[in-house]
């Protein structure tokens, strides 16, 4: 993997993504507003509620969508420039949120087609690369099957396989674990962890446990703006001293829910007769969300 990075010329010390004041509007609605973001190589989780602008941000980073304002640099290049955009695309793997496949294609044929679009022209090299990525997502025994006959999780993995083609310097994955069972998710984490050592992997997800298990850094997007960026540990630290187990749901808590043991997990101020517990990433994320929501109400 280290040799991989050298061969591909991945720069592990410069930021892979730099956004300054990036905005994007759709039909008058603001999807992204003044986004400042700096992402270093490694695995980065992108969290945020539905409609926060995650998919818009990822499509801008995948060079398929332009920004309305601000400056975007991806792998040190400007996606608004045609030549530099192609250079970014040569180093990019992208899994869109919703991916539909051409009708009648087998798994192999689709990944092979994508390998051609990624300029892996030489037939022997292409065959070896297609086999490699199908093995990475554990789909080699489904290579000859029509994609239509695959299960949802298998189809998602076909999409992942094409994203991994050519060992890209930047992987942009929009909810890669949707539809995967727990074992497949663990297997996927292994593959992505490996990639993260030599490249930048940006994962948008609703699964805080995926972020906790995989990512060193996390970005939280809320209503089109970045509400947190830093290490996962730093986000969890912000929830330190604010997560309580009590026998009842505390009305003053930002969020509270009944756990499997029958006690209530309360996030926020200390309820009466409560036990302070270690926060998880999910606690920290919910607290951050609650804080921005009450700010919005106050404003």
């Amino acid at each position, binding site marked *: 993997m280290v040799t991989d990075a050298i061969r591909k010329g991945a720069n592990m010390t410069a930021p892979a993504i730099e956004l300054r004041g990036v905005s994007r509007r759709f039909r008058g609605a603001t999807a992204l507003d003044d986004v400042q973001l700096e992402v270093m190589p490694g695995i980065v989780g992108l969290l945020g509620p539905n409609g926060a*602008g995650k998919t818009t941000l990822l499509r801008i980073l995948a060079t398929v969508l332009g920004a309305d304002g601000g400056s975007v640099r991806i792998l040190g290049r400007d996606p608004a420039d045609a030549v530099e955009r192609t250079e970014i695309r040569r180093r990019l793997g992208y899994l869109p949120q919703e991916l539909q496949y051409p009708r009648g294609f087998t798994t192999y044929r689709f990944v092979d087609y994508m390998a051609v679009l990624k300029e892996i022209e030489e037939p022997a090299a292409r065959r070896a690369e297609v*086999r490699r990525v199908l093995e990475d997502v554990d789909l080699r025994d489904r290579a000859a099957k029509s994609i239509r006959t695959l299960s949802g999780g298998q189809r998602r993995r076909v999409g992942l396989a094409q994203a991994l083609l050519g060992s890209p310097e930047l992987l942009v994955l929009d909810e890669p674990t949707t539809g995967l069972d727990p074992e497949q998710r663990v297997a996927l984490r292994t593959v992505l962890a490996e990639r993260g050592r030599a490249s930048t992997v940006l994962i948008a997800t609703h699964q805080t446990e995926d972020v906790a298990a995989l990512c060193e850094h996390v970005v939280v997007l809320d209503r089109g703006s970045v509400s947190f960026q830093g290490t996962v540990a730093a986000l969890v630290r912000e929830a330190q001293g604010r997560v309580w187990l009590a026998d009842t749901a505390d009305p003053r808590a930002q969020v509270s829910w009944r756990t499997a043991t029958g006690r209530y997990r309360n996030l926020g101020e200390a309820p009466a007769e409560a036990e302070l517990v270690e926060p998880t990433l999910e606690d920290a994320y919910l607290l951050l969300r609650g804080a921005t929501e009450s700010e919005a109400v106050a404003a």
Partner: protein
Amino acid sequence: MTTWHVDPSTLGAWVEGTTGPLASASVEQHLVKCERCRAAVAGLVRIEDVPGAWDDVLAEVAGGAGLAERVLVRLGLKAGDAVVVGAAPVLRIAWAAGLAAVLGFILVASIAGHDRGLALFLALAPLMPVAGVAAAYGPSADPSYELALAAPYRMIRLVLLRSAAVLLTAVPLTVAAGLLLPLDGATAVAWVLPSLAFTLVVLGAGSWVDPWAAAVTVGAGWVAAVAVSARYGDVLAVVAPTALVGYVALIVAGALVLALATPTWRLDGQWSPMQSERERT
């Protein structure tokens, strides 16, 4: 157990794949029965070739390259480009079947009534390739369009390759259908000029609008023109010599626009704000 064995040089040539078909068949027949020669083969196969051989088998079994793709490679197209052309939905059976159905309908109609059949043929024939080209690319035609866009392969190359494939299938078929009609030879092929002109207009307009929108606009205009000339005069006016000069001019203009717009072709770039308005956030 046989008493003779394949000599080492022939066996070596067979492993390399350089023996002719007859010698190969003979060696293979022998290997099935002879353990000693099989062992000799095992010694000749380089272990590093095995994964490659496996890749080839997998590609052959699972790749499912269609007939069109194989023919294109035989004709000298690069294997990768043939994959891109073969992936176009228009080159599937449905497209050929649809084309054949429309042509059959025109033939039946023109046998039933000559003038109306002629008008129908002139209205529809030039639009066959236009529809095929519009369906060959773009967000409304390609379900994995966004992935193709994020890949470094030039979109203009993809579109031109697919358009060429569409023209190569649609034009000869439609010309053949035209020759079956009770038309003079010139009229039976004259429609090819407006057809090429409209195809180039759709491709050239691809820098600004969705190919389907362009194709529908051009198609509606053409059908109206044919209908008007059939109603108020001679339907053949749309392929009269002066009109043909106009189509040639349009072909030249379309080709120029395409050539000039190629470096900044919209479909190679990012989605324009106008187009992405239709997208979710």
